[in-house]
């Protein structure tokens, strides 16, 4: 058992660290959920991409450096330690790209991945519907075959789609077989958000910013070339990224370790006035370290050919609760200033609050842990059966 990095890993770490030190904006960028902030975040992605740092684990042809999983974790650690901007491209690069690599045609890979890597095209995830949240497989939006035009016609409504307000493309599941129920008969489609028949309506979140949106589909044509994976196989295609979202890729330990270090700094200046927060500060720091160490264990297993599987659910519950605890401790330290909206602690807190809801709610994750990891009996028939895998 050892946690030492190899010479090439250390060299990579040093390169990333010095580049970030020289290039991370001194002042935090405005929120990416504003028009001004959006443009600046896209610019930042282009800058990262020019250095092949936007998607380090991808193949070279599509903008990456073929970094190993270990190097990816190193990159993330450095990225967050440096206080670099949030990733406006994250749902594309972390949730969609792995599917395009596994299920996309070579033509799709060549057409979609490079512009995703540079941040030129930002992607929004369009899975949830008003009546299909946790029970995603009950979704109702339809895709109807159009042989004459060689494609499909989408109708229905998606909602809670992060960054869809400004994003360029969407990816989502539609019911392509009208006689099907639940997981069967779903197909995965890719569509430009400015296509004819699409209406995007921004939704203001807790802090008033339009961080997600509803998407209405009114006879939207999608050519066959933009079907991802086989027709009717949408559920399995989609679920191959749910693990990414819950597991490693969406929330790397670097984020939490950096926040924990900032929390300790905050304690040094504010702790005298709020000694009762001591345990919250310590526990948040310990939690971040636990997550870092746990992740190295996961990386070791994956590098040895293991699979994430249901263990991603353990990860997800932990990081989402840790993120809230970290920011709550920060707010407690700030005392009466905590409520002020211009502090990174309130901003981070509001963002953290959604963690237990998206990427499969923590209740659904606990069901998965209980049933698949502990082997407890499934819910009786009639009750919830179709949890997201």
């Amino acid at each position: 058992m050892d946690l030492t990095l190899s010479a090439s890993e250390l060299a990579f770490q040093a390169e990333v660290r010095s580049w970030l030190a020289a290039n991370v904006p001194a002042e935090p960028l405005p929120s990416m959920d504003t028009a001004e902030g959006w443009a600046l975040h896209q610019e930042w992605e282009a800058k990262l991409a020019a250095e092949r740092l936007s998607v380090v684990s991808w193949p070279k042809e599509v903008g990456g450096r073929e970094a190993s999983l270990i190097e990816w974790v190193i990159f993330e650690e450095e990225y967050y330690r440096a206080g670099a901007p949030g990733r406006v491209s994250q749902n594309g690069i972390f949730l969609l790209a792995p599917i395009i690599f596994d299920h996309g045609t070579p033509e799709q890979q060549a057409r979609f991945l490079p512009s995703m890597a540079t941040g030129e095209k930002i992607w929004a995830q369009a899975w949830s519907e008003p009546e299909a949240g946790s029970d995603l497989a009950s979704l109702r939006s339809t895709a109807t075959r159009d042989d004459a035009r060689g494609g499909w016609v989408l109708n229905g409504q998606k909602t809670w789609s992060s960054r869809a307000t400004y994003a360029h493309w969407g990816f989502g599941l539609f019911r392509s077989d009208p006689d099907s129920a639940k997981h069967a008969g779903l197909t995965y489609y890719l569509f430009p958000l400015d296509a004819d028949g699409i209406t995007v309506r921004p939704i203001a979140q807790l802090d008033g910013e339009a961080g997600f949106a509803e998407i209405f589909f009114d006879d939207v044509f999608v050519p066959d070339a933009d079907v991802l994976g086989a027709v009717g196989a949408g559920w399995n295609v989609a679920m191959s990224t749910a693990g990414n979202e819950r597991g490693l890729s969406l929330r790397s330990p670097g984020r939490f370790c950096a926040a924990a270090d900032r929390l300790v700094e905050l304690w040094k200046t504010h702790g005298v006035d709020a000694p009762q927060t001591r345990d919250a500060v310590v526990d948040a720091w310990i939690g971040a370290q636990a997550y870092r160490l746990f992740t190295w264990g996961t990386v070791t297993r994956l590098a040895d050919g293991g699979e994430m599987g249901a263990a991603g659910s353990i990860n997800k519950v932990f990081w989402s609760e840790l993120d809230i605890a970290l920011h709550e401790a920060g707010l407690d330290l700030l005392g009466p200033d905590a409520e002020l909206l211009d502090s990174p602690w309130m901003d981070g807190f509001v963002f953290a609050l959604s963690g237990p809801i998206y990427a499969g709610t923590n209740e659904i994750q606990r069901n998965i842990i209980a049933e698949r990891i502990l082997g407890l009996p499934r819910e009786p028939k009639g009750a919830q059966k179709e949890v997201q895998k």
Partner: protein
Amino acid sequence: MKFERTDEQQGFAEAIGDMLAKADTVGAARSWIDGDTAAGLGIWKRLADLGVNALLVSEEDGGLGGSLVDLAVAHEQLGYHLAVGPWIENAYLSTALAAGAELDAVAEGAVATVAVAPQVPRALDGDVASARYAVIDGTLVTATSGTIRTSIDGTRRLADVASTGTVVGSRELDAAFDAAVLATAAQLVGAGERVLADSVTYVKQRKQFGREIGSYQAIKHQLADVRIALDFARPLVHGAALGEVPASAAKAYAADAAYLAARTGLQVHGAIGYTAEFDLSLWLNRIRALVTAWGTPAFHRGRVLESLVN
């Protein structure tokens, strides 16, 4: 970078686990509570034959020259199987004692114990041990065993100690304390794992309202939380063994995780879990005792913060 037990460590854990699983550790613990230590000492001897007692003793001093990770691996098994005797104290003494006859005895499997006031005011099994020590004002001395106080964990016979006045050659008392803290944390993880395993078995078989109670979400979610807590406790213990985080971080977190396992384990068993006769009680009481043994959670949190601020 490989943050997983080596094959050797895995094999060591299995050897200890297999031996203890067959050894009727529960019977030995119950006899120990009644003052009959023969079975427990027999198991001590067999663990010593596997080298558990001499892990931290260097090879030139007659030990195995193992690492703190090896120690954590072994102690998780001790917690899982409820081994009795001053094993945590063994981790302390095998680091604290300077080379010499006293260390030789520990390396050869003698049952030795120690009190390290103020965190550890009494010596575990002081009346059973063949050698007793105390740390008084930072000095290691031999000690006598006085009144035995009874713990909620009846296997923990806690002896008041008094110095004999004889100073013993010592080294690295701080490292010894951290080794003991780490061993305690590892035992807590092991004990928590056992409570979780037994609870999962129970809720799959106990039926109420016509279904297994384990099919109710109120039960599932509590046990899932225990699974999560223990899964994050172990990397902290191993990380502390590698010096990545203070031992205190591992102890504070492992205590919380094991305590959650104990509280949850009791709750999902209902009244049967509240009885002394049901074996679960032995682990519930062990966990409660270890939560405050070798430094309370508050003490360890304070130490972690100190290490961060300074």
